């Protein structure tokens, strides 16, 4: 059964999902008519086109042999996402240094190629560089330390 959800079937279904998501976002926006298009005209057209393409891709793929669903690597995906989100979460209130250090530490969990001994050094270097280049040099209005 695992063979059914191969890479191409999954691609098709993903596209259908994107189209549906698009339709939901449109809600009840006015369609208008062709010579006076409403804000909902083109988005609806695109969303339905996505659903149609996705459905066709799925049906087409079911009847063919395709490569298996690709192996997604969760460790880098989660760690890099978390590191970036941590930066966004911390920068406003906690300032550049803490945001960069947190980002570097979380990002270092992404892969076994990182060496724990190097992480603190890298974090300090990046934080110092960030402050010098972006706050002192380019004068971005970002606090250095928690406010």
């Amino acid at each position, binding site marked *: 059964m695992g063979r059914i959800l191969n*890479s191409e079937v*999954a*691609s098709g279904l*993903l*596209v259908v999902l*994107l189209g549906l998501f*698009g339709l939901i*976002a*449109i809600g009840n*926006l006015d369609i208008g*008519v*062709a*010579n*006076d*298009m*409403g*804000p*909902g005209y*083109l*988005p609806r057209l*695109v969303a339905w*086109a*996505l659903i149609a*393409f*996705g459905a066709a*891709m799925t049906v087409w793929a079911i009847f063919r042999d395709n490569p298996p669903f*690709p192996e*997604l*690597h969760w460790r*880098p*995906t989660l760690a*890099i*996402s978390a*590191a*970036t*989100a941590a*930066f*966004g*979460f911390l*920068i*406003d209130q906690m300032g550049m240094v803490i*945001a*960069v250090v947190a*980002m*570097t530490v979380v*990002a270092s969990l*992404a*892969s076994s*190629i*990182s*060496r724990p001994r*190097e992480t603190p050094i*890298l*974090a300090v270097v*990046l934080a110092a560089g*960030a402050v010098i280049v972006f706050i002192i040099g*380019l*004068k*971005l209005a*970002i606090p250095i330390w928690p406010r």
Partner: protein
Amino acid sequence: MDLVSNIALGFSVAITPVNILFCFVGVLLGTLIGVLPGIGAVATMSMLLPVTFHLPPTTSLIMLAGIYYGAQYGGSTTAILVKLPGEASSVATVLDGYAMAQKGRAGAALSIAALASFVAGSIATLLIAIAGPLMAQLALRFGPAEYFSLMLLGLVASVILASGSLVKAIVMILVGIYLGLVGPDANSPMPRLTFGVPALAEGVNFVALAVGLFGISEIILNLERDLARVAPVAMRDLFPNLEEVRRSVGPTLRGTVIGSILGVLPGGGALLASFGAYAIEKKLSSEPERFGQGAIEGVAAPEAANNAGAQTSFVLLLTLGVPSNAIMAVMAGAMTIQGIAPSPKVMTEHAALFWGMIASMWVGNFLLVILNLPLIGLWVKLLQVPYRLLYPAILFFCCIGVYSINSSAFDVYLAVGFGVIGYVMIKLGFEPTPLLLGFILGPMMEENLKRALILSGGSIEPFYQRPISLTLLLMTVGLFVLMALPSFKRTRETALNAD
């Protein structure tokens, strides 16, 4: 003809100390990221958009353009030395460049690549100076119908150039168009498609989208695969011999012509140019069997073509205001940030900017030659910086770039979302480049379509009755027919997967 005075105006802008400095910064940064694996020109230029706020418009565009062609230059350096095309447009250079390096001619290949690029860049600069005003004349005849047809052609052409499945490329364009429509709507005060999120009222942030798709997802992809390095080939001497120079002249000139033409086409640019030039050189050669075995022609032609193509791809943006590929989409973003709407008026109302940018390309190419030949040793060293130290730094640039454009944490979360979705889609064989073009062109197409239909009272007649629009639409149809041909499919697959 005002050609001379225009070029003189351009150089008077381009060789001010500030502009030379930022041109230098641009090409240096560009070469750096071209050499480094796992970060490309689109992501870098997007990250730096917030920084360009603080620069005058001309200076910021000069720097961004420098990153673009600098990256290609760096990309070919790694293509030759370690068989790793830093940018897609140097894939064609790998074939013969690396073969030459293995035969001990790495230095010659690098010099010829640099010189061919420089010659091509110089000629392309002149061509833009001649063609620009002509295009601007043509632009006067462009109404909404023509714009719509031109953008449609660009989107369809970018589908052909995307590697992998055509259907998936079309899907990516549609997703891009949809994302481009989020936010402001020309005809109503209410933002649309935002789920009521106020941060989306101004639309999806371009930098968050580009950095997510091209920066963050790329880091994830690089971390999951083993970035084992090929040791750089040792270099003996930097200079090509006379025979190599003689063999390179023809391919360089032909590459320049092919690159210049393919670069102007919507959807074109450096990538198409380099493959086209390589294929033609191989066809023309009396000994095609030498290609792939270290033929200098196979280095000179694609390098000349990608540089010429990179430069002429600015023409559509600067004269018609239509970005023809993902890089130009970023440039359009930069212009908008600076308060210059990309349109045919740029050439007349911002003449100094237009000609200054064109002249700066020549300056930039010159800087690349004198900068890079002596610095090759340094680039080789940089190649050996391990990825474990590099990726946190790249991630930091992604974060600060996205955050600083609006000082918005929401944009950073948005970039995370696009990064993850982008990662999954790339794994499934969807290429992100067409999405970015769709994102920029989507709202422009909607506006022109609406205008054209209002003008014609809802009739689609203007699209096929106006000659320019009809020509563009016929070209679009032609591309669709081409796509359906089995022989074309095969050629495209071999050309785009030539590594």
